């Protein structure tokens, strides 16, 4: 049962443009959402998070938007850089249980 879904397995963007990564969830009890970034052969690293009481959180080039009614969140990267090329995982927490999406591979072309 995939409670967190990332329906786009890959995304390709030109350097300098905006990257938008999407995530949908089914469990209305999720109250905290996170994005992780992962390079090959490394563990995921935390990128940005948002509490369910907010609808936007911004950190430099990264902004996460949460639409609770639609059970949807997105990560915006502006401007995109080649070093942003990685797999991005969306995650959601319900109490002490964190679930991950399948990941989206972002490729930023110079």
């Amino acid at each position: 049962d995939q409670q967190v879904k990332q329906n786009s397995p890959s995304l390709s963007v030109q350097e300098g443009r905006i990257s938008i990564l999407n995530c949908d969830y089914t469990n209305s009890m999720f109250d905290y959402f996170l994005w992780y970034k992962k390079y090959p052969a490394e563990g995921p690293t935390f990128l940005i998070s948002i509490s369910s009481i907010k609808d936007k959180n911004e950190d430099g080039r990264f902004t996460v938007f949460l639409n609770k009614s639609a059970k949807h969140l997105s990560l915006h990267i502006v401007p995109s850089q080649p070093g942003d090329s990685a797999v991005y995982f969306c995650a959601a927490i319900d109490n002490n249980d964190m679930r991950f999406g399948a990941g989206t591979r972002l490729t930023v072309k110079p």
Partner: protein
Amino acid sequence: SQTIHQWPATLVQPVGSPLSLECTVEGTSNPNLYWYRQAAGRGLQLLFYSIGIDQISSEVPQNLSASRPQDRQFILSSKKLLLSDSGFYLCAWSGGMGDGYTFGSGTRLTVV
């Protein structure tokens, strides 16, 4: 500061051989500990989690087992590896209370 160590980084094992992957956390006490496997198309699959010594919960029935002999040590094991056990295994910890997880650097296991 808290750190998490996971080893080995890579491992090649023959089918039918045993497995032991170790994960330790420093700088915190009573962490929640997790083992994940990164599978193609399925993202990060939770295998086991532990909220305390000798308290292990299994998410997915399989050829693997986990143990927590000490507060900050989490071990992933198998008595007989299968080809399908190949993958990238990640250990993680959290302080609980809705905190995000911190991951180890992962182990690439290849069963041949």
